[in-house]
């Protein structure tokens, strides 16, 4: 879950992180009112669940309330990347002396949290790390012991930060790490963390990504604004993992690994998959709605059903699919390969209901599905010419 800036800032402010004074506006006049109340120059920032807003023109500095109103009018109703901008954050400009970078993320290779600190804030940290790796302190944290005060001080001391700021930054790191843990974060990044001319630390931006698997214990987070095509959103609502692709062979397979491999085989044999859809795990009992999803994509010209059951029972999937075929009566050719748990019964179900003989090998099924899609496309073009 990508938590939008304003929501992330509210969460970290509750946890003790200083943020600029400001508020959310959903209209240009509201933006004027907030800027007027804040006083002085403000930042008007589009709220979308994505990074790189600055480069996309989603962050505008405004010197007075009238400018803020104009900026908000321009941003509201526009779109940034794939998101519509329906609210902006209007907040005070900090009196910045220096910008720092601080983040806690997960190092999946090491299997633990990773604290990152740099005195080169405000920039793309990956670029900083690539060009001047010694400018980024990267310190693994023992999740059982947590981040210790001495450890935080050591990290800060290793930077070229002004000594007077060491204690406040070390204390900031402890707060940040606590928030990372409290919100089940995959990433909590403050970039920039401003050092003001009066020597205070203020979080000018906040990027918080919360683990979807922990949503059950994070009542203050979400719901997330979902991205994706209409079909992907519909699938998500039904609890399916579906990715729409630009090919013409619809894919129904069980399990993430087998489904990806099926897509790879389609491509290797010269075809093009229309979707990723996993009917594995507990979803194997829901083949009927899964089939309906695959068929809803108008680009699908043939269907490949590739099952290799382990935990998932192929006979249960086959029953669900046949129920779907009987209800939806799709006018498209289907190619099957069914092996693994329940395969004899599954193959018989397909033979009896559809009169189709499943292929012995996955490659043969893949090649037939590609040929079927090509034939269907050629047929459509032929009909087009006749008209």
């Amino acid at each position, binding site marked *: 879950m990508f938590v939008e800036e304003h929501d992330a800032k509210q969460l970290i402010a509750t946890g003790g992180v200083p943020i600029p004074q400001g508020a959310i506006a959903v209209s240009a006049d509201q933006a004027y009112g907030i800027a007027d109340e804040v006083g002085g120059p403000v930042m008007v920032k589009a709220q979308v669940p994505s990074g790189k807003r600055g480069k996309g023109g989603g962050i505008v500095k405004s010197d007075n309330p009238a400018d803020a109103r104009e900026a908000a009018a321009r941003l509201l109703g526009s779109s940034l990347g794939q998101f519509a901008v329906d609210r902006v954050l209007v907040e005070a400009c900090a009196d910045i002396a220096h910008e720092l970078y601080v983040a806690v993320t*997960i190092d*999946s*290779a090491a*299997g*633990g*949290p990773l604290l990152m600190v740099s005195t080169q804030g405000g920039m793309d940290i*990956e670029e900083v790390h690539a060009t001047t790796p010694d400018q980024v302190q990267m310190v693994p944290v*023992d*999740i*059982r012991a947590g981040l210790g005060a001495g450890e935080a001080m050591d990290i800060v001391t290793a930077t070229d930060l002004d000594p007077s700021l060491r204690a406040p930054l070390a204390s900031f790191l402890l707060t940040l790490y606590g928030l990372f*843990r409290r919100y*089940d974060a*995959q990433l909590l990044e403050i970039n920039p963390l401003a050092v003001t001319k009066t020597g205070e630390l203020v979080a000018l931006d906040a990027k918080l990504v919360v*683990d*979807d*698997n*922990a949503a*059950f*214990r994070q009542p203050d987070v979400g719901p997330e604004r979902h991205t994706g095509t209409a079909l992907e959103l519909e699938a998500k609502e039904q609890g399916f*993992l579906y*990715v729409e*692709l630009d090919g013409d062979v619809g894919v129904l*397979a*069980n*399990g*993430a*690994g*087998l*489904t*990806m*491999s099926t*897509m*790879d*085989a389609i*491509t*290797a*044999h010269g075809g093009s*998959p229309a979707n*990723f859809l*996993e009917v*594995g*795990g507990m979803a194997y009992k829901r083949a009927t709605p899964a089939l309906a999803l695959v068929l809803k994509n108008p680009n699908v010209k043939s269907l490949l059903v590739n099952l*290799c*059951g*382990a*935990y*998932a029972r192929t006979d249960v999937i086959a029953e669900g699919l046949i129920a779907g075929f009987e209800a939806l009566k799709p006018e498209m050719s289907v190619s099957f390969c069914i*092996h*693994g*748990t329940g*395969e004899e019964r599954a193959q018989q179900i397909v033979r009896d209901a559809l009169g189709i003989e499943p292929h012995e*090998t*996955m*490659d043969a099924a893949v090649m037939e599905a590609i040929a079927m899609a090509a034939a269907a496309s050629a047929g459509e073009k032929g009909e087009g010419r006749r008209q």
Partner: protein
Amino acid sequence: MISSKPQVLVQGITGSEGTYWTEQMLSYGTTVVAGCTPGKGGQTVAGVPVYNTVADALDAHPIDLSVIFVPARFAKDAAAEAISAGVLTVIVLAEFVPVHDTMEMLALARANAANLIGPNCPGIVFPGRDFVGIMPGWSDRLFAPGRIGVVSRSGSLGALINLNLVSAGLGQSAFLGLGGDPIVGTTFRDALEWFESDPGTDAIVLLGEVGGSMEEAAAEFIPSMAKPVVAFIAGQNAPEGKKMGHAGAMVSGGKGTAASKMQALAAAGAHVATVPSDVVALLNHL
């Protein structure tokens, strides 16, 4: 890791999945010595005594390995109970375990010199000996005693390759399912090290997928190995920024692509297949 036949504890044995798979494991020959469900101590499941706590089970039986059938949100506490009580290998099957919980389980396992396998994994199979988890170890279409070590993130891709191996007259020394999460306790590198030292294994099949850097880390070990490695990486056409079913299977910021993994493995001397059916062909040409 599991060199000799383990004495197995099933945590969550009284749930429907725990009971079903305990019955399957027992009938295949797995030594399930005890089960554990809080509040159900004193019952039996398929003849296996149930205890309230792992410590109670350990008082009554030697236990080498615990397999955890509890739902994702309770997996961490169950694993911690087993590891703290002294169980040296713990298999977590559940999908959707919070990643902070996985980091805690892994840290606890390391501190106790225990092995964590999973989460989000299908378990392990030793054809002809025993299996632990939710792979149909009894299926003679998928498994036959042999000398190929198979290690896979995914159960379904593992099933396909195992089917192809058995159809070609080959068999497995062991199948290890590592799991599809971004962080898993046992890595490809751990598995390669284990198979390299296993006298029952002649060659290894590594089945990876997009996301993370576990395959690249394994590649670093391959040049020092005496046994050949055949690899396949799923998700060669995975679009950037989309989770491909498994939480760990995502290409992001141009990293974790199948191409980079295939290149690293090939450069290290592995034989890399482009489609699953090539795996058997490559094994036959070793």
